[in-house]
């Protein structure tokens, strides 16, 4: 089966928000703070502009609460008295001409009496930088298992390390945008988004409306990667406020600069490890401290931290684990959801650290991992017993074999002897990723999904989970078609419109295929039941029954499903113990890199990605998820760097924030172990995020081995690598 909307995309017929042309629509624009923190003293409008022709909205025009409601209500829709970060929205403008509204935005000065910003989480805040509690901490979390201090004291060796990861920009190729209009007293908001019901929740709060007074509709979405999880609520509210003020449809589409400066990034993190191993290199204690920079408002930081710390000790067996995490308020734009959601940061630290531990223990990195990988029946740091039948050691061995590790290492040694400048190395990472919401999250979401029989005999899947490139439409179609014995062409997927589809939860956390896909199966079963058909009814029987029902009752038949947690999955939020996720995907990635000692530039020359994510539902889509995730991971590892100054991103252009091109990447070789997981549709687990966890440590470990340095920070730019190499100088100064 081909991607459902593939041809529409290949021919340019797919409609994204900026492709929707609405008669009489105005262009909206956001006027933002230039200061990282302070009290708004005055807003000056240049008298040279005719303001009477421009719609201007400020915080006083918000009918409901001035809050972008998500976890906490701390983030305003429009700053009222104070600003807490650069590029914080203060005013909104609209006009029929984009040119006029752009010029108008340049003609407004927001004067701010500055207050001292807090920008660096590696040092504690000064009293005058405090903005939350007595320490600017948004959230603290801890995981405790066994007795770490005793185990460390008794360990044969204790190895310490500190690792840092930088902010990462999503660079979805479609920038953010929203279109809003009012129709029969209902505010419609349509745009680029991952979570229609998040936007809905925020909109009824800020617009002060009943749930049916607002309808959120997803337009085709040109990539999200988490970047369209929370920020779209902000833009949606802005477009809605303007449309209410102007009484006309309003479209806001960010240009690339605004999108990069103002919207969320991956949380920067500092992770410290203290690891005890016994004489055989077995882990006896892991003491881990995680600090994340949350930016100016809470947004999703507590859950990012949570996923980060749960994955921080890696896919390893260890009796004594202590993980402390905190996420801090700083005066940079809020950091937020990004594919992996905290786990890539902690996996980078852990897998880089495992190579350091291996060296200290006198083991090769493969052997160290073979000795410590979780076996079926072992417990994770939260005490979750892993029994999914996946052989993690076999995955590692497969990745190593496919990469040609042993033969290549010999060739690399030869290269180092003969070439004055070029060095190559192999690097490895083992990792895991929990699918679905953390802990009791899925229970609280209580997702619902419908499958309706249409009068023409087709069925329609109604869910709030959206397509953003990852394949939702195709996967849901395939699942429903298989369950009911229909052709894919007989399955329609409803537009994600909160007025028409139930809340099946957000499209995040690798949950769509695994959790919501399972609901598709259950709703299909329920439809069959409601049609009065036996459980094995398929194809023609279904088709006929659907048509007859519609003819007889004049109504469609709707099969319904609601999430129920798999039996025996238990989580205690108070102690952070139990089953953190219903299922995990497992990965073992190997990178081969070449470092040019003339320039300290690193090129990834081969990449092998082996993972087990249960049954693979669609081979091309799954491989594409892995390859895309690996490409983002390689970018994060080597070149993607946000350059900050006074809380503002300095390189908010694609010329200066560099992502990999086709010429920078090797073919990414993808292999799947396919141990079916009974809890998922057709045996599948979540896949979307796993591939971003492994590439950075694999690549950096390979660089470390290629030239004999010990990097601790990404992106490992040539400049950083040069500095490391100079410190290690003398070992390879040989010139031909």
């Amino acid at each position, binding site marked *: 089966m081909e991607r459902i909307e593939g041809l529409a995309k*290949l*021919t*340019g017929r797919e409609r994204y928000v900026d492709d929707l042309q609405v008669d009489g629509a105005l262009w909206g624009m956001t006027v933002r703070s230039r200061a990282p923190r302070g009290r708004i003293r005055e807003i000056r409008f240049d008298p040279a502009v005719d303001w009477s022709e421009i719609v201007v909205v400020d915080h006083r025009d918000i009918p409901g609460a001035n809050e972008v409601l998500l976890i906490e209500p701390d983030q305003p829709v429009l700053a009222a008295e104070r600003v807490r970060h650069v590029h914080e929205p203060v005013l909104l403008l609209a006009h029929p001409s984009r040119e006029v509204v752009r010029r108008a935005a340049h003609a407004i000065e927001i004067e701010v009496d500055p207050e001292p910003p807090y920008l660096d989480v590696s040092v504690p805040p000064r009293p005058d930088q405090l903005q939350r509690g007595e320490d600017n901490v948004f959230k603290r979390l801890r995981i405790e298992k066994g007795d770490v201090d005793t185990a460390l004291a008794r360990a044969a060796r204790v190895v310490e390390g500190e690792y840092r990861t930088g902010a990462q920009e999503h660079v979805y190729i479609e920038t953010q945008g929203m279109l809003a209009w009012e129709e029969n007293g209902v505010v419609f908001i349509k745009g680029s988004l991952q979570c229609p019901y998040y936007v809905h929740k925020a909109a009824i709060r800020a617009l002060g409306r009943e749930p049916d007074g607002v309808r959120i509709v997803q337009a085709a979405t040109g*990539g999200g990667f988490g970047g369209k999880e929370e920020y779209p609520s902000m833009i949606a509210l802005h477009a809605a406020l303007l449309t209410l003020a102007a009484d006309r449809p309003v479209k806001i589409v960010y240009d690339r600069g605004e999108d990069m400066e103002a919207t969320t990034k991956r949380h920067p993190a500092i992770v410290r490890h203290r690891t005890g191993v016994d004489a055989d290199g077995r882990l006896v204690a892991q003491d881990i401290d995680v600090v994340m920079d949350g930016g100016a408002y809470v947004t999703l930081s507590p859950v990012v931290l949570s996923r980060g710390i749960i994955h921080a000790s890696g896919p390893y067996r260890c009796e004594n684990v202590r993980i402390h995490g905190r996420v801090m308020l700083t005066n940079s734009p809020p950091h937020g959801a990004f594919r992996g959601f905290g786990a890539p940061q902690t996996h980078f630290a852990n897998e880089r650290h495992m190579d350091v531990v291996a060296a200290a223990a006198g083991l090769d990195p493969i052997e160290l991992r073979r000795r410590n990988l979780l076996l079926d029946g072992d417990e994770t740091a939260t005490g979750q017993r892993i029994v999914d039948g996946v052989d993690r050691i076999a995955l590692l061995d497969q990745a190593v074999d496919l990469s040609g590790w042993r033969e290549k290492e010999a060739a690399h040694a030869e290269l180092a002897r003969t070439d004055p400048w070029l060095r190559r190395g192999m690097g490895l990472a083992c990792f895991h990723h929990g699918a679905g919401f953390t802990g009791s999250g899925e229970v609280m979401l209580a997702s619902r999904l419908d499958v309706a029989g249409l009068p023409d005999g087709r069925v329609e899947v109604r869910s709030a989970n959206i397509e953003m490139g990852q394949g939702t439409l195709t996967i849901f179609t395939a699942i429903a078609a298989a369950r009911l014995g229909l052709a894919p062409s007989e399955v329609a997927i409803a537009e994600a419109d909160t007025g028409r589809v139930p809340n099946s939860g957000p499209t995040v956390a690798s949950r769509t295929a695994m959790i919501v896909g399972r609901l598709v199966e259950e709703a299909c079963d329920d439809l069959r039941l409601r049609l009065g058909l036996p459980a094995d009814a398929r194809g023609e029987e279904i088709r006929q029954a659907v048509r007859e029902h519609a003819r007889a009752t004049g109504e469609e038949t709707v099969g319904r499903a609601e999430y129920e947690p798999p039996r025996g999955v238990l989580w205690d939020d108070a102690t952070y113990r139990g089953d953190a996720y219903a299922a995990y995907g497992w990965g073992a990635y190997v990178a081969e890199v070449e470092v040019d000692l003339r320039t300290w530039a690193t090129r990834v020359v081969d990449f092998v990605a082996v993972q087990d994510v249960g049954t693979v539902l669609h081979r091309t889509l799954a491989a594409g998820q892995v*390859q895309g995730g690996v490409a983002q991971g390689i970018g994060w590892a080597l070149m993607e760097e946000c350059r900050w100054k006074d809380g503002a991103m300095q390189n908010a252009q694609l010329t200066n924030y560099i992502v990999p091109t086709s*010429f920078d990447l090797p073919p990414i070789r993808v292999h799947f172990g396919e141990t079916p997981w009974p809890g998922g549709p057709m045996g599948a687990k979540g896949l979307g995020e796993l591939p971003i966890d492994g590439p950075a440590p694999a690549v950096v470990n390979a660089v470390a081995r290629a030239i004999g340095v010990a990097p601790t920070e990404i992106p490992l730019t040539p400049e950083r690598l040069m500095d490391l190499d100079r410190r290690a100088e003398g070992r390879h100064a040989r010139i031909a």
Partner: protein
Amino acid sequence: MHGSPELPLSFTLNGDAVSVEADPAARLLDLLRYDLGMTGTKEGCGEGECGACTVWIDGLPADSCLVPAFQVDGREVRTIESVDPARLGPLLSSGATQCGACTPGVVMTGLWILENPGLLRSHAIRELMAGNLCRCTGYDGIIEGIEAALGTRS
């Protein structure tokens, strides 16, 4: 509205003669998308980096965000709207598109390679595609699709 008189221009668009009046400050991308309603060509950055806005001008790929509309006067422009879907099977099967935002640009550059296979005597596909950023696919699906369409990959 800012006193710039519109400029008349005539060019060939996907084989048809077109005459329009354009704002002198309009980029070819704006002309196509907002004046002519041909929204297949996408804006990903407006700074020539991403290639989502790629069209052909006189047979060569160009970023339409970097071309003033008036410069296509007398020239031949080809956009994604001209592409025969029947040619896109290999790209569909290989997973060349995910979110689709980069895709029209990718297809226009890919098609240029398909129509000028002699380029591959001196260039690799990965080099020729380097002006089209894709954040979803990691490029493998794109490269494989072009290879399949060229018949160099089974």
